[in-house]
């Protein structure tokens, strides 16, 4: 008996050790990034990245403050797109999900199929790009960051529908209808308050997708005034990459003339881009886990 107990404890300890190691691996790169952003520029060039900065300096963040015009503009665009996109997404998705859950709605399966089919088949990126740019002309407008891809997802619609079907009793809806409530009243007064958990889950998925998005910016935005923070970071990286490639081709190319942020500054910008996710994530992760489980098991 005693031996059994020991082997179980040992197994548990091994599990814990491996998981702690993996946790450290998951977090370490972020620490390295943070450390690089507060290391003195010369030390960073001389000694490279270190987990523990030898000479502390907040010049990078001061530089960001001086450059707040461009960087905070990008930041604000990210905030704006995330808020507007998420709210619109939740409204459209839940409005679409409700009729699908109504058993007395004869055509609900037709519409459910319409949404389901989009999860199986798509026209491909090239066709989307041409339609959005040639037919709807969203290139270099704020719409380009809001509309393509993220406004309503098939998975979320089906999740909402399943939630309504499973947890809102028909009798409540029936009673409201007998009292003469319109469909819109039923939706705003009964469904929305009752379906808060699923709405929050969808909002989280949509919010993270919008905040982290860079593909729409990559395809549709070339005007630097409309860069979101991730698009801004992406372009920064591309410019640096381009210059280092050129500088190796033509010896001693004049890099100094370009106003390129230093390594530390780049890491500082990346740092402020992950910060909101880092702050919010511990609070939302429980809800998110529930969403993954519901969405993953039955789409």
């Amino acid at each position, binding site marked *: 008996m005693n031996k*059994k107990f020991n082997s179980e404890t040992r197994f548990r300890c091994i*599990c*814990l050790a491996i*998981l*702690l190691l*993996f*946790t450290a691996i998951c*977090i370490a*790169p972020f620490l*390295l*990034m943070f450390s690089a952003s507060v290391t003195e520029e010369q030390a*960073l*060039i001389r000694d*490279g*990245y*270190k987990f523990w900065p030898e000479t502390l300096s907040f010049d990078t963040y001061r530089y960001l403050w001086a450059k707040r015009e461009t960087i905070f503009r990008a930041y604000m665009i990210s905030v704006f797109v995330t808020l507007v996109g998420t709210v619109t997404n939740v409204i*459209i*998705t839940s*409005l*679409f999900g*409700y*009729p699908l859950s*109504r058993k007395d*709605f004869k*055509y609900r399966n037709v519409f459910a199929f319409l949404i389901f089919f989009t999860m199986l*088949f*798509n*026209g*491909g*990126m*090239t*066709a*989307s790009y*041409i*339609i959005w740019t040639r037919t709807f002309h969203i290139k270099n407008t704020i719409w380009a960051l809001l509309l393509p891809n993220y*406004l309503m997802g098939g998975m979320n619609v089906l999740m909402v529908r399943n939630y309504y079907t499973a947890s809102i009793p028909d009798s409540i809806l029936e009673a409201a209808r*007998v009292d003469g409530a319109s*469909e*819109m009243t039923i939706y705003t007064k009964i469904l929305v308050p009752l379906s808060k958990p699923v709405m929050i889950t969808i909002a989280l998925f949509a919010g993270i997708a919008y905040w*982290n*998005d*860079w*593909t729409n910016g*990559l395809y549709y935005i070339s005007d630097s005034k409309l860069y979101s923070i*991730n698009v801004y*970071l992406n372009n920064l*990286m591309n410019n640096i*990459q381009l210059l280092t490639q050129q500088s190796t081709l033509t010896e001693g190319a004049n890099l100094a003339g370009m106003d390129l942020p230093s390594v530390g500054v780049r*890491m500082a910008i*990346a740092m402020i881009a*992950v910060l909101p*996710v*880092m702050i919010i994530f*511990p609070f939302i*992760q429980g809800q998110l*886990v529930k969403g*993954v*489980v519901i969405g*993953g*098991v039955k789409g």
Partner: protein
Amino acid sequence: MAGAVKKKKKTKRVSYVPLILMMLPGLVYLAVNNYLPMFGITIAFKNLDFQKGILASEWCGLQNFEYLFKTKDAFIMIRNTLCYNLVFIFGGLVASLAIAVMMTEISKMKIARFIQPAICFPNMVSIIIVAYLVYAFLGSDGFVNNTILGGEGISWYRESKYWPFILTIVHFWKGAGYGAIIYIASISGIDKGLYEAAKLDGASKMQQVFKITLPIIKPMIILMLLMSIGRIFNSDFGLFLQVPMNSGVLYETTQTIDTYVYRALMERNDVSMSSAASVFQAVLGFMLVMASNLVVRKVDADSALF
């Protein structure tokens, strides 16, 4: 009696107009974002001339596909997409299952509440940030060259042979913890009594994992496997474009169908090649999803998508 019939009739006659009006924003969005591009597939079979527009451009049959498959790019991108996905699918399965079993084991400890979010976190940040992190490690003055190799220095971004390993590590670093969530949930649904009984019979922990846990969650494992096999022609666009910093010398090992579609369209302005590749991906992907669903239905009808 008559009143009841009348009442029933009255409630039965629900007007569909308000319901359809509620769905209208979503329907418009589906039409624009999803269905119009499906018709855009025709672009792949045409000699697109923007002067004439998509509809009036001339048909050219399968010519675009012929050109595409004559290039070396076609072989490279399909090989890369499939090989990476195979490694990601099966490696990811093992990694996520292992994490799920271990997380279940320590779920009663307080520290689990810290570990769980921490290992999911990398999946929450954008791939651009991940590319910056990788650069901090592999850049010319990065952590690896400077601190681990002591200034010896490997030009990671110029040597394609390292990238299969780098991308695989990055993929698992980012996704393994998040992928475990679904298995943690299914393991937590297993009856604890089974383990108690096994313990009394003297089964070791490993035996419990292989004889109880895995067989019970097998349907879930098969389902997840088949679903990912259905997406085997799709790749994580960001991982393959951003993490290698869109570096041209690395195409040999980093080009996938998604990055090819992007590069052909945006960097070379070659709409016909780009659309041929993207239609190839969409159609094959569709067939695979249908096929895998057929298999799922045979294995476990309840888990089938349709």
